[in-house]
């Protein structure tokens, strides 16, 4: 998956989990927990959405690697 | 001024008679179709059919010119059809479809058509008379040689608007042809049970206007008297009044159990069916055969089948348009 597709997948998942977050113009440096205020359940839903729709499984051990929008996009691009 | 009998005219010209026969049959078949569609719940609301009275509309309409105006009642399917509104458009209106002459806003009782100067479709008894007087007033003031034909039942003669309108039209000598369709019953109330003076021509004549009683089951007599009256009105002779004695074969509306009249009475009148009568007299001349009749009947049936198809294919106006036509769209 290229970066563009990965971004689209992450944005779609984010909109699903946090409809109030405007993905347009979203700062890549935003941290999922602190800036977007996703709690653990939200985060789980986000990961679940990515698994279902983008086919990317983020194992729990990798949660630490996907703390920001940018890192999540990169992760998805790499693993899809 | 009052002629107690219809003026006798020249013998019927077969071509003209053939036309009248055809027109009456079209009305008959249209309304038979309406009754059937009503029973099938394709048409709702009130439905008043004219079956038995066709000679009146056919005779008067053929005496009018294309620029003349017509104001009718709620029993007006035939009038609209013979004025030139197509059967399909009439049925579509009864279906409540936007393809109807009033986009489904009027229904059976309120057919209107600007192109043929057909001003309804008025369901308040006698409510159309003042309108017709005003139409004629405008024509008079504008110098147009137009006649406004106003149809109403004998029940209207008990209403104040009947008297006010005859008075005003006669006073101002306006070009109105008042056509009283006397079918003897105002809904279920017989004329004699509701009006002290049952001679309607006499009643009208009190307003100093020519008033004739005509056999409304004889289309040739209706046509002849209407033609004379229309010519006189157009020539500036002021309003004329025709009492057209006729009979409604069917119930007042689809809700009418007909408790108020004998079956025998209905049967007596049915023998004088205007369509059957004219057909017989035409056949007697030897210039109209059973084959001719069958061909005519098939042709009219085909017209009505096409009309039903047209109505069926239509659709109601979008609900978003509900509020349209309350005020003019500018």
């Amino acid at each position, binding site marked *: 998956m290229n970066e563009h597709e990965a971004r689209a997948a992450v944005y779609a998942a984010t909109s699903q989990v946090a409809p109030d977050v405007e993905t347009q113009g979203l700062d890549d440096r935003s941290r999922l927990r602190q800036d977007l205020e996703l709690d653990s359940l939200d985060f789980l839903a986000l990961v679940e959405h990515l698994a279902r729709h983008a086919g990317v499984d983020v194992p729990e051990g990798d949660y630490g690697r996907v703390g920001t929008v940018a890192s999540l996009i990169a992760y998805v691009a790499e693993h899809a | 001024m009052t002629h107690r009998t219809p003026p006798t005219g020249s013998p019927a010209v077969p071509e003209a008679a053939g036309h009248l026969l055809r027109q009456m049959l079209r009305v008959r078949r249209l309304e038979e179709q309406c009754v059937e569609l009503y029973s099938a719940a394709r048409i709702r609301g009130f439905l008043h059919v004219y079956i038995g009275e066709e000679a009146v509309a056919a005779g008067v309409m053929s005496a009018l010119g294309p620029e003349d105006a017509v104001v009718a009642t709620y029993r007006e399917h035939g009038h609209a059809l013979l004025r030139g509104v197509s059967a399909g458009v009439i049925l579509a209106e009864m279906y409540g479809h936007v393809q109807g002459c009033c986009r489904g806003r009027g229904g059976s009782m309120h057919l209107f058509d600007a192109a043929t100067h057909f001003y309804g479709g008025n369901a308040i008894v006698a409510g159309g008379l003042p309108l017709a*007087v005003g139409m004629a*007033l405008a024509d008079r003031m504008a110098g147009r040689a137009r006649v406004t034909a106003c149809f109403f039942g004998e029940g209207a003669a008990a209403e*104040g608007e009947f008297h*006010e309108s005859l*008075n005003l039209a006669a*006073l101002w000598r306006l070009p109105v042809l008042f056509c009283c369709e006397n079918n003897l019953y105002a809904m279920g109330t017989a004329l004699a049970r509701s009006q002290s003076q049952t001679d309607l021509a006499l009643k009208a004549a009190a307003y100093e206007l020519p008033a004739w009683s005509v056999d409304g089951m004889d289309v040739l007599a209706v046509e002849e008297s209407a033609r004379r009256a229309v010519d006189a009105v157009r020539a500036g002779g002021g309003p004329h009044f025709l009492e057209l004695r006729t009979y409604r074969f069917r119930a007042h509306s689809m809700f009418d159990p007909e408790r108020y009249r004998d079956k025998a009475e209905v049967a007596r009148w049915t023998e004088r069916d205007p369509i059957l009568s004219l057909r017989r007299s035409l056949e007697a001349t030897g210039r109209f055969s059973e084959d001719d009749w069958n061909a005519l009947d098939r042709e009219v049936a085909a017209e009505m089948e096409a009309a039903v198809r047209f109505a069926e294919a239509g659709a109601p106006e979008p609900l978003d348009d509900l509020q349209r036509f309350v005020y003019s769209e500018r």
Partner: protein
Amino acid sequence: METTYREAMRTAIREALLQDDRVFLMGEDVGAYGGCFAVSLGLFEEFGPERVRDTPLSESAFVGAGIGAALNGMRPIVEIMTVNFSLLALDQIVNNAATLLHMSGGQFNVPLVIRMTTGAGRQLGAQHSHSLEGWFAHVPGLRILTPATVEDARGMLWTALEDPDPVLIFEHGSLYNLSGELAEDAGPVDIHAAAVRREGGDVSLITYGGTLPLTLEAADRLAAEGIEAEVLDLRTLRPLDDAAILATVVKTHRAVVVDEGWRSGSLSAEISARITESAFYELDAPVARVCSAEVPIPYARDLELAALPSAERVVAAAREAVGGGG
């Protein structure tokens, strides 16, 4: 130029007759007599019996004839002597004028103007004094005007004649002698917007027609007490200018509706309901109403006055609304 409401109305009719051949005036005693309230005085002589047309006493027929003539290309002005008599023509107004456009699916509009006198205050008793314009304002398809100033008496008629649909103009009998300053070049005015006749921030007095003068008087008295009332003249009762009503209520947070009609099922009820529907959370006091007593208007002077809205009653209602009442 100083003029009266009656003269302004006459000028308007005369101008319409001069400007448009399709216009004619029709009604009981509008011609040779000069009009029951002398509005059309002199027009019969100037325009002749065809265009200033005396009718028999048959309201239904001549109102209906007005509708028919309007359908057929004319621009009739039909005068009904008083609103009480208009009931004899109610069939034509409600069943025909208001419905034809809709029933015909947009084919037949009725460009008719009907003028009539309304209201009490002249000891004319119960069959010449009622205020029934609220009834007519109930009916979709009609436009209802209530000129209350000389400008509106002068200017509403022409605009009404240009309207493609039926317009009813209600002239309060007590206004005919009202005099006021009118610009030399005064002409047609709009017939859709309400007008603020006096600005104020403490309470809105909402009225129309014959009760405008007493409402303005009440506002003056209130000002002397330190209460600044805003006076809204509705001018058009149908369609109501909701935006103007809302705007004044949002400004003052209190409303008193003054209506010479009876309170029950009335136009004042309609206005009050609309205020609560759309401006409830702007209100600092219940909407108050000053209406006629629920009796047929009596003849005797004192009784008649007691039955009608007065400046005193408006002042009291306004005081109550702002919290200064007893």
